[in-house]
């Protein structure tokens, strides 16, 4: 009888964990680790505050469908890859001939922002970013389950006019006008 109770308790625990995993936001999100070659590179930003080079990629279907001044299409995936900048002897980023940072091979961040119809309903309105979901990945492609995504949503929240993106909607507006 005791074994039966333990087994039942274990089953309930496993079920509750499975339900939690299915409903948790970042678990919905997947990205191809071939993004550097299969996605469209839309921006490269030198971050002076943390001495990194941040490259923004967009899935080609979304890039093709995106229209200036309109919300980004359903199915948009944005990937933000951060690399350390090469530093000089003074500890400051070295610059290339165009005055840009020189990225190293060291990836320090892979974050994504994905938009799917019906997503985001589990978030309270004061933090919800429309139908966008966020996730952070390890360099081996596995989901970083410990990542705190709240700052991502807080930072992007005021950018509703740019469909909750810091860069992508502006790039579409600028390059497809």
């Amino acid at each position: 009888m005791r074994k039966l109770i333990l087994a039942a308790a274990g089953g309930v625990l496993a079920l509750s964990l499975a339900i939690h995993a299915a409903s948790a936001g970042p678990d919905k999100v997947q990205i191809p680790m071939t993004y550097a070659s299969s996605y469209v590179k839309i921006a490269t930003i030198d971050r002076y505050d943390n001495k990194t080079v941040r490259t923004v990629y967009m899935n080609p279907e979304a890039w093709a469908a995106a229209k200036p001044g309109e919300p980004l299409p359903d199915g948009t995936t944005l990937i933000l890859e951060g690399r350390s900048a090469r530093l000089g002897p003074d500890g400051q980023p070295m610059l290339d001939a165009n005055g840009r940072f020189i990225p190293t091979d060291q990836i320090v961040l892979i974050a994504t922002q994905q938009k799917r119809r019906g997503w985001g309903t589990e978030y309270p309105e004061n933090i919800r970013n429309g139908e966008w979901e966020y996730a952070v990945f390890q360099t081996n492609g596995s989901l970083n389950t410990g990542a705190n995504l709240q700052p991502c949503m807080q930072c992007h929240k005021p950018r509703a006019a740019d469909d909750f993106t810091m860069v992508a909607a502006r790039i579409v507006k600028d390059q497809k006008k």
Partner: protein
Amino acid sequence: MLRRFTARDAVLAAAAVVGIAIGATAGSVSAGTAHKVSMSGSKYMPAEVKARVGDTIRFDNDDFENHWVYVPTVGNYQVSRAGLKPGESFEITAREPGKFTVLCGLHTSMETVVTVAK
């Protein structure tokens, strides 16, 4: 043999001094004009900057809170400087012609447009 310092010499000397001064000014102009942008009251001022290649555009946080200067578009001008504290500055060098909007990552109403001519 030494000769007297005449009025003509004085005029020539004055002309030389003026010439040196003009040269120094011309030199600093060719090195680029420094444009300053204020952030007081969570507002970029001026709202429009007209610069030339070689100029610098300096964003002074003369406000009472942090700001986050960033340029989302236009090739080599894509930069970001978060956590700019009161009293700190961030400078962009105009290296090529173009037109870009500078935003603040914390305050959506803050925008200034920079146009860089040759």
